[in-house]
C-alpha cells in the first residue's frame, strides 16, 4: 500500500499548522518525529480524515481520498490518553470495530479478538473492564482494538507518553514486531529520538509544520540534513560548536585545533557549525581520532546505565554521554575525547556539508530479521 501526501497544508484561522507536506508513506512503520507543537497531531488527524487539509491532496494507492470522511477511510487511531469503552469488557472493546458496519460471523470475531489479545499479551484480562486494568494494559487494549480490524491506515499519536518509564520501555520493544509484517500503513508520532530508532522503518522529521527530512530511520539519523534535524533527532540534542576551518585545521576554540578528518578534507576554509553527538565525546581515548579537551563538569546526569556530563570548555558548552555510572561533583575537571571521525560539518545556514562515513547506511540494514 502507498499513501502519498501531495503538498498538504493546513491553516486554522490564518495560522499555519502544516505547510507544503509532500511524502510517500508505504506499508510498515512510518515514524513522525518532532518536538511538541511541530504539527504531528495535525498531520495524523488529516491522514485519519478527522480534518480536511486547506491545501493539497491525499492519494491512497492512487485513489484520491482527500474528501473522504473518517468513516470511509478504514483508519484506526490510538491516542495519548487511554481511550476504551468504559462499560465494555476488554473482549468487547477489542471486538467493537468488527461488530460495526460489515457483519462478521461470531466465530471469526472471536478468532480475531483472541489473536489480537495474544499479540498484546492481554489474554488473561479479556473479561475485565478497563477500570480494572493498569495504564499499560489499558493502552494495550486500545492498540489491540486498533489492529483487530486490519485497517489500511493505523495512526498512533504518542501512544506511550502517559505510561510509567518502565512500562513504556516494555511496550515500545514490542511495537516494532507488532507492525513490521503488516500491510497496514502505520504512522507513529513521537517526540523521542530513541523511540524512532527502536521502531525503525522510515522517519519523517517534522518541525514547525514542515518536513525537514524523510527517509529510512537509520539513514536519517546518520545523515541529518541540517542542524535542526540533528537537534531534534538526538537525545541529548546534538552538540553544536562554532568552528573555523583554516589551512587543513579545524579550530574549535583558541586552544583546541586539530587536523581535518578525512570526510571534511574537501571543505573550503571558513566558518562552520560542527555537530557532534554526546555519545562521541568520551572519557577514554578511542584510537587515533580521539581529540583531547580539558573541560569543567557543570552537572553529571545519571540514567540507570549511562552518565550525561554537561561540560564547559572555554566558550564551548557540550554534553558527553558515557557508559556506566560515574559520579562527579559540581565543578569537577575532566579530560574528554572528541571522536574526530564522527564530526558533522554544517555551513552558516545550518545545512549539512560534511558527514562521517558510516559503514552501513543502506536502507534497513543493521536491523535483524527473524
Amino acid at each position, binding site marked *: 500500500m502507498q499513501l502519498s501526501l501531495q503538498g498538504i497544508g493546513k491553516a486554522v484561522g490564518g495560522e499555519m499548522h502544516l505547510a507544503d507536506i509532500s511524502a510517500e508513506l508505504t506499508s510498515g512503520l512510518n515514524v513522525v518525529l518532532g518536538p*511538541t507543537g511541530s504539527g504531528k497531531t495535525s498531520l495524523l488527524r488529516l491522514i485519519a480524515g478527522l480534518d480536511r487539509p486547506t491545501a493539497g491532496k491525499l492519494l491512497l494507492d492512487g485513489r484520491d481520498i482527500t474528501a473522504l470522511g473518517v468513516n470511509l477511510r478504514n483508519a484506526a487511531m490510538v491516542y495519548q490518553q487511554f481511550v476504551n469503552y468504559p462499560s465494555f469488557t476488554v473482549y468487547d472493546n477489542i471486538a467493537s470495530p468488527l461488530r460495526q458496519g460489515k457483519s462478521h460471523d461470531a466465530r471469526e470475531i472471536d478468532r480475531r479478538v483472541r489473536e489480537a489479545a495474544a499479540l498484546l499479551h492481554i489474554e488473561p484480562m479479556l473479561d475485565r473492564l478497563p477500570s480494572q486494568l493498569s*495504564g499499560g494494559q489499558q493502552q494495550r487494549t486500545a492498540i489491540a482494538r486498533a489492529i483487530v480490524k486490519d485497517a489500511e491506515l493505523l495512526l498512533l499519536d504518542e501512544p506511550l507518553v502517559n505510561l*510509567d*518509564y*518502565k*512500562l513504556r*520501555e516494555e511496550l515500545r*520493544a514490542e511495537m*516494532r514486531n507488532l507492525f513490521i509484517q503488516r500491510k497496514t500503513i502505520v504512522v507513529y508520532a513521537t*517526540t523521542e*529520538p*530513541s523511540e524512532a*530508532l*527502536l521502531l*525503525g522503518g522510515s522517519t519523517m522529521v517534522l518541525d514547525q509544520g514542515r518536513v525537514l527530512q524523510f527517509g529510512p530511520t*537509520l539513514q536519517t*539519523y*546518520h545523515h541529518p540534513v541540517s542542524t535542526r534535524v540533528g537537534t531534534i533527532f538526538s537525545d541529548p*540534542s546534538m552538540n553544536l560548536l562554532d568552528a573555523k576551518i583554516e589551512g587543513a585545521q579545524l579550530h574549535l576554540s583558541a586552544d583546541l585545533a586539530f587536523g581535518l578528518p578525512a570526510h571534511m578534507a574537501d571543505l573550503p576554509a571558513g566558518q562552520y557549525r560542527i555537530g557532534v*553527538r554526546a*555519545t562521541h565525546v568520551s572519557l577514554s581515548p578511542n584510537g587515533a581520532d580521539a581529540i583531547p579537551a580539558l573541560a569543567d563538569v*557543570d*552537572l*553529571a*546526569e*545519571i*540514567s*540507570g*546505565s549511562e552518565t*550525561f556530563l*554537561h561540560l564547559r570548555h572555554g566558550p564551548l558548552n557540550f554534553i558527553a*554521554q558515557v*557508559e*556506566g*555510572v*560515574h*559520579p562527579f561533583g*559540581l565543578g569537577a575537571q575532566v579530560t574528554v575525547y572528541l571522536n574526530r571521525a564522527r564530526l558533522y560539518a554544517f555551513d552558516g545556514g545550518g545545512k549539512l556539508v560534511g558527514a562521517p562515513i558510516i*559503514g*552501513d547506511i543502506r536502507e534497513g540494514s*543493521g*536491523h*535483524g*530479521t*527473524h
Partner: protein
Amino acid sequence: MARIDLVELSHSYRPNPRSRDDYALPKLNMTWKDGGAYALLGPSGCGKTTLLNIISGLIQPSAGKVLFDGQDVTSLQPQQRNIAQVFQFPVIYDTMTVFDNLAFPLRNRGWKRPDIQKRVEEIAEILDLTGDLKNRASGLGADAKQKISMGRGLVRPDVAAILFDEPLTTIDQHLKWTLRRKLKQIHAQLKLSLIYVTHDQVEAMTFAEQVAVMYGGEVVQMGSPQELFEEPAHTFVGFFVGSPGMNLLPCAIEGNEAVIDNIRIPLDPERAQKAAATNSPLKLGIRPEFLGVVKTETTPSGTIGVPTVIESVEDLGNFKIATTRLGTHRLKAKLPETVEITPGPAQLCFPTARTRLYADDRLIAA
C-alpha cells in the same frame, strides 16, 4: 535541617487491615541523614507518595513513628513540622504576586515586614526570580511556578527538609535540565535534606546521592546510583533500573556453575557456594551492558563462551541491542555501535565478576 528516622512505620488506607495486601506500606525502618539528597524511585502504586505524605504529615501512619532529629513528630501537623513540599502540578496562589507568594508562609508565621522583605529577596536571588517578584505568579511558565513552590519552602530558615513529588512532570524536556541543575546547586549551597519521589530513573539518579527503590510498599534497596547499577540488591532493582533492565534467568547450582536448561555458566566460586547453601529458588542476573556476544570461537580472556543463537540485532544509532537465545530463555545484550554483528549462531560470555545470583529475589553478596 534534620535527620529523619522512620521507625516500624506502616500504613493502610483501610480501617481494619488484616492481611499484608491491605497495607500500602507494610513495615518500614529507615534513616534519612541530615543534608542528604535522596530519591524514592518506584513504579506507580508502589507506596512512594504515601511514604512522602507521611513524612510531611499530610497522612497519619497507621502504626510506627516519624522522628526528626530524634524527636517524635508523628502526631504533629504539617505546618508544625518545618517541612516544605513541591507537588506534581505547580501550586501557586493565583491572585498574588511572586513576592506575596514567597512571603506567604512568613506572613502566616507572623514575621515582621522588613525581615520578610529581606528574606524573600534573598531566596528570589537564589532561584533567579528577582526580576519577576512584582509580577503576578499566575502568568508565569510551569518551570517558574515550580520554582515559586520550592521558594515557599526555602524562605523558612527553619525548614528541615524539602519533599518533591514528581515535580518535573509538567516541565518541557529542555527546561528539565536547567531546573534539575538549579536543584543541585541549591542543595550544595543550603545543605538541606531533600527527598525526591519519581518513577523516572534518570530523574532519581541525576538528583540523588542515595536512591531508595520501592516495590510493593517495601524499600528493596537504598544505595548510590552506582550501587543500584552494579550491585542490584533485588531482582526488581535489576529490572527497574537500567534500560533495558537486567537479564534474569531461573537457575540451579552445580559446583561452581549455574545450570540453565542444561547449559552451564561459570560463576564466582564464593557466590556459587553461598547460593548452593540456600533452599530458595535461585535466579542468575546479568546486565545487558556486561553480557558479551562474539561470533568467533575465541572469547575474551577470562570468560568461557556459551553457545547461543542471535535472534535479532536492533541498531539504535548510538548502540546495538542483540536479542539472543539461551535454552528457552531470551537475553538482551547491549553492544557498542561499532560492533558488526548479524543474527545467527554465536557465543555468549558471562564475566564472572559481573554475574549476580539471587535467592528469593534477593542478592547473594560476594
